[in-house]
């Protein structure tokens, strides 16, 4: 039986369709990443799957239980790590865990031991008596995940788990997620960071404007969308005119800007190289560096969604410059 299953799951907010007839299946024990820009419907989906909001249409099953009909049973089976670390600022790290344990029906005699075990597991034992409000962002995030695991749920939902964390804290958190995966926990995570989805997930669903446009393993998504090779080109000056001209080339399948560089999907490196150099010259620009690169999930994402990677990083959903020619 799948851990998570939805059929035609839909959610309207007035005229806006936040989630549009979503069909997904998450197998037990896998890491499933929901990848999409802000406003794509990721959080709304998690909220429906965890019984916080009702779907307008369709069904969601957790461990075979209908979320709308059996909300308490479903809530007891899942742990939820919301985008915002929302534990109690005045309570200590340990007391927060003890409180959440009681809320999930952990027996009184086991709460303290469970809290201490989680504090140890998440490297927070030394700060056990510190108020939650006094912890660093990374510690708060770790404690929020610990709180979601206090009743040992088989399924864990993580909404943008590394948002707002520094590089070290984010890396530590990703290691924690992988550790949970090894313990057999089914993980459903939302993210707008392509690299995070690629690094962590067994399967990735790409969500745009409430619809899933592709679901597969990162490798399969790359293979399906990026059979061609790719070039990374640095050009000076990097003008809109030049980008438009490059996008119009027959040998270029897609183009996206990543910082100072342009990422080009090409049908053949040799032909594309000549065409790019000539186009740059015609536009009064100079190519300062060229590299052939292995297509990544980012390339697949750009091709599938017509969104630019920088749009994802910025969190917007505007269709800017990443569309296929």
């Amino acid at each position: 039986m799948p851990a998570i299953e939805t059929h035609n799951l839909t959610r309207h907010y007035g005229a806006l369709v936040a989630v549009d007839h979503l069909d997904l299946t998450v197998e037990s024990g896998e890491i499933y990443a929901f990848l999409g820009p802000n406003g794509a419907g990721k959080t709304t989906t998690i909220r429906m799957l965890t019984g916080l909001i009702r779907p307008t249409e369709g069904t969601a099953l957790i461990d075979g239980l209908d979320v709308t009909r059996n909300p308490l049973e479903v809530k007891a089976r899942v742990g939820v790590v919301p985008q915002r670390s929302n534990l109690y600022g005045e309570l200590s790290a340990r007391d927060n865990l003890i409180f959440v344990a009681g809320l999930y029906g952990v027996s009184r005699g086991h709460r303290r031991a469970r809290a201490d075990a989680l504090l140890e597991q998440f490297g927070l034992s030394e700060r056990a008596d510190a108020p939650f409000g006094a912890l660093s962002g990374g510690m708060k995030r770790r404690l929020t995940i610990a709180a979601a695991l206090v009743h040992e749920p088989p399924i864990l939902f993580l909404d943008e788990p590394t948002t707002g964390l520094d590089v070290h804290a984010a890396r530590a958190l990703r290691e924690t997620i992988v550790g949970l995966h090894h313990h057999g926990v089914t993980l459903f995570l939302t993210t707008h960071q392509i690299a995070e989805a690629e690094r962590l997930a067994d399967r990735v669903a790409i969500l745009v404007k409430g619809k899933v446009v592709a679901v597969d393993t990162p490798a399969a998504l790359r293979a399906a969308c990026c059979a061609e090779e790719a070039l990374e080109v640095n050009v000076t000056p990097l003008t809109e005119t030049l980008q438009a001209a490059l996008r119009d080339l027959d040998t270029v399948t897609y183009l996206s800007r990543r910082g100072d560089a342009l990422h080009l999907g090409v049908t053949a490196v040799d032909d594309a190289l000549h065409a790019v150099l000539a186009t740059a010259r015609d536009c009064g620009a100079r190519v300062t560096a060229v590299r052939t690169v292995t297509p990544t999930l980012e390339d697949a994402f750009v091709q599938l969604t017509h969104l630019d990677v920088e749009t994802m990083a910025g969190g917007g959903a505007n269709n800017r410059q990443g569309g296929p020619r």
Partner: protein
Amino acid sequence: MRRDQLARAWHIAAKDMRTYYLKPPLVSWGMLFPVVMILAFYLRSPGDIRALVPGLVALTVLFGATSVEAVVIAFEKRIGAMERLVMAPISHAALLIGKSASGALFGAATGTLMWLLAGLVLGLPLAPATLVVIAIGSIAFSLMGVLVALVMREVFDAMAMSNVFRFPMIFLCGVFVPIATMAPALRAAAAVLPLSYTVDGLRHLVLGGGGSYFPLWLDLVASAAFAVLLYAACYRLMQRRLEELL
């Protein structure tokens, strides 16, 4: 309701009591305000204070119970903790009991303290049935506070909105002037406000019926009915509009 759900409701109430009872808005509105009111009336006319004891005790219960809910619910909505509670395996019915219990207990405790002090200092009767009037009134007021706090986002807003209900009730419910001496229109208004029945019940038990307007049994039944109606209103609001409220 299942026993495990009630246990979780109590778990929430216990945490709220531990976390919020000394929050500044609660200290000022739930503790200091009633004390200031009592001192103001005592200093103005020490001889008349006995007649005001039922009203002042009821006022203490009202401000204590409603202020706790403004803090407990509006504050938790702001920090996202209410969402955490809703995501937990606890029914809306049990969550409502848990959230209103801390206010009801606070109002009952401060009201009882006031009643005992007044009784001992002024030599008034200390009938045990008074505790029942205070307890039922406190439950109703707490649920009134829940209803207001559910639709407000900030503690300050919830306090301000609570005052929209609380202050008119001070003047309409026989706190300072017995309902029997009020104009017919004001008596009609008093009949539909929960504070009237708590004040009236206390008049029966503390002053031996002096200045009371309704029979004692009606005070108890009406207070309980308000509690049930307010619970039903809160529950309906949570069932129908929870997403907007969070």
